[in-house]
């Protein structure tokens, strides 16, 4: 359904959101598991060593079996594509923080170091988890790309801590937008969707913390990348100034003003937009 956001009155907007609701009212509950729970479980058990450090959530062990199958249901291939896309981003983040922590004297000891260490810990575990889940879908996890975090010499993140933090902010804010943009593609599988959302909010916590470490607020004002962010990172923030949600111009129904509204809603990026940003750092 096409909505012209510009000339929409609020009343129409509200009707539109209910049209959206209606469009999705009927969703047949077929049962169409692409692989059996037993298969998925066996695959997970087969990966015992890898999985030993942290139990995989039970819901994910039965990831295929619990599929909320419907006419719009994605195939396991579609789902694996989404997860492989997420995996690429997690590789990027994990390697970035690992290299930063491996660079002597880059990250100040104490508060900064323990924050970056925790973020790295999460990203490394996101990589491991995604690989296992992609495996359990019967697909092959993509291999780690080669990264160049200088983006061909434009940045010096491992020689300049402020640049390291700036790129960390860009990666985390991108991660939030990337997962958000993929949520709809996982809607046919409740367990995968939930896991993706559980990663998404962790990325948001990281983003907030890194931004605050840089002296910014934890949330994004308008489409501003914030002080000290290189101009090349602007693509990470384009579109964050949207104030229309589901056809409702939120500035017309709330007193908080446009700035407050833009801070209140994070916007998604699609796969191509994300890969364009990440592509700067992929050799």
């Amino acid at each position, binding site marked *: 359904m096409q909505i012209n956001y510009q000339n929409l009155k609020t009343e129409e907007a509200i009707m539109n959101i209910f049209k959206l609701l209606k469009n999705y009212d009927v969703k047949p509950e077929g049962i169409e598991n692409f692989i059996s729970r037993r298969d998925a479980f066996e695959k997970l058990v087969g990966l015992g060593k890898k999985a030993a450090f942290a139990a995989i959530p039970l819901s994910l062990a039965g990831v295929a079996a619990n599929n909320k199958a419907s006419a719009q249901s994605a195939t396991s291939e579609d789902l694996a594509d989404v997860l492989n896309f997420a995996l690429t981003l997690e590789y990027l983040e994990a390697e970035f923080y690992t290299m930063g922590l491996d660079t002597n004297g880059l990250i100040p000891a104490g508060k900064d170091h323990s924050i970056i260490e925790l*973020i790295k*810990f999460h990203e490394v575990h996101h990589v491991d988890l995604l690989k296992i889940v992609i495996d359990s879908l019967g697909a092959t996890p993509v291999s780690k790309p080669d990264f160049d975090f200088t983006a061909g010499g434009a940045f010096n993140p491992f020689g300049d801590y402020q640049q390291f933090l700036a790129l960390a902010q860009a990666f985390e804010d991108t991660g939030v937008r990337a997962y958000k943009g993929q949520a709809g593609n996982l809607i046919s599988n409740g367990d995968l969707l939930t896991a993706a959302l559980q990663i998404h909010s962790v990325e948001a916590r990281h983003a*907030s913390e890194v931004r605050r470490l840089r002296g910014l607020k934890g949330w994004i004002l308008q489409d501003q990348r914030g002080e000290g962010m290189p101009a090349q990172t602007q693509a990470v923030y384009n579109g964050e100034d949207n104030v229309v949600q589901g056809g409702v111009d939120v500035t017309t129904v709330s007193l908080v003003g446009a700035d407050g509204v833009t801070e209140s809603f994070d916007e998604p990026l699609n796969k191509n937009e994300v890969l364009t940003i990440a592509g700067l750092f992929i050799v």
Partner: protein
Amino acid sequence: MSKTSKSNVETPLVSRLNGSRRSFIKYGGATLAASGLLISGCEHLEQILPDKGMGKPEGHPRTVNLGRGDTGILNYAYALEQLEAAFYIEVVNMPYNGISDEEMVIMEDLRKHEVAHRDFLKAALGDKAIISLTFDFSTVDFSNRHSVLSTAKTFEDLGVAAYNGAGRLFESADLLLIAGKIVSVEGRHAAAIRSVLDEDSRSFAGSDVIDGNGLDRAFKPGKVLEAASPFILNKINANQLPKS
């Protein structure tokens, strides 16, 4: 008392509302007054005026039925956003003793964001929206920093877990996306509150909320509403919400 020099930090938003303790009720009213578009475009004023039950008629607030399907989930979110908005409105109206400039800005920002979420959800739901709920913050000492920030931490972490758990209940991908736009902001809040409140610099994504796989929490509505129920005087009926 909690009167500090911070009262001069009041934004135009607050000053339009007057500083009474119960001003979150009036805040709802002011929102309506400002949204002339909505009122003039709507024949049924009773749909958008604050519910008369707000003032505890006969001492017992009405039971609220969230409804079914995606509407029910949006109402569930609307109930939680009402709770958060009402809380931060109180916090900003009477900042706790010794609040720092940074903390005051965070509290004002969080109030803005939760009010925006609340107002948006109300508008999106239209005549399907539940009434304005009645809250009980008597367990919170609004003059005490730790009491206020601990409550904020509870609410923000709970909001994250609520949206994470509710995502799979949506039928509409468009509404799922909107919920996604809100939940990451709640995650940003949770991290900020934790980082000003807690000694441990890793608390922003601490192991009390993030598991060994690097996953945040995801709660079912029943668990969330149980955790929120001490603060909500209305009885909330979530029986018709989707189960999976």
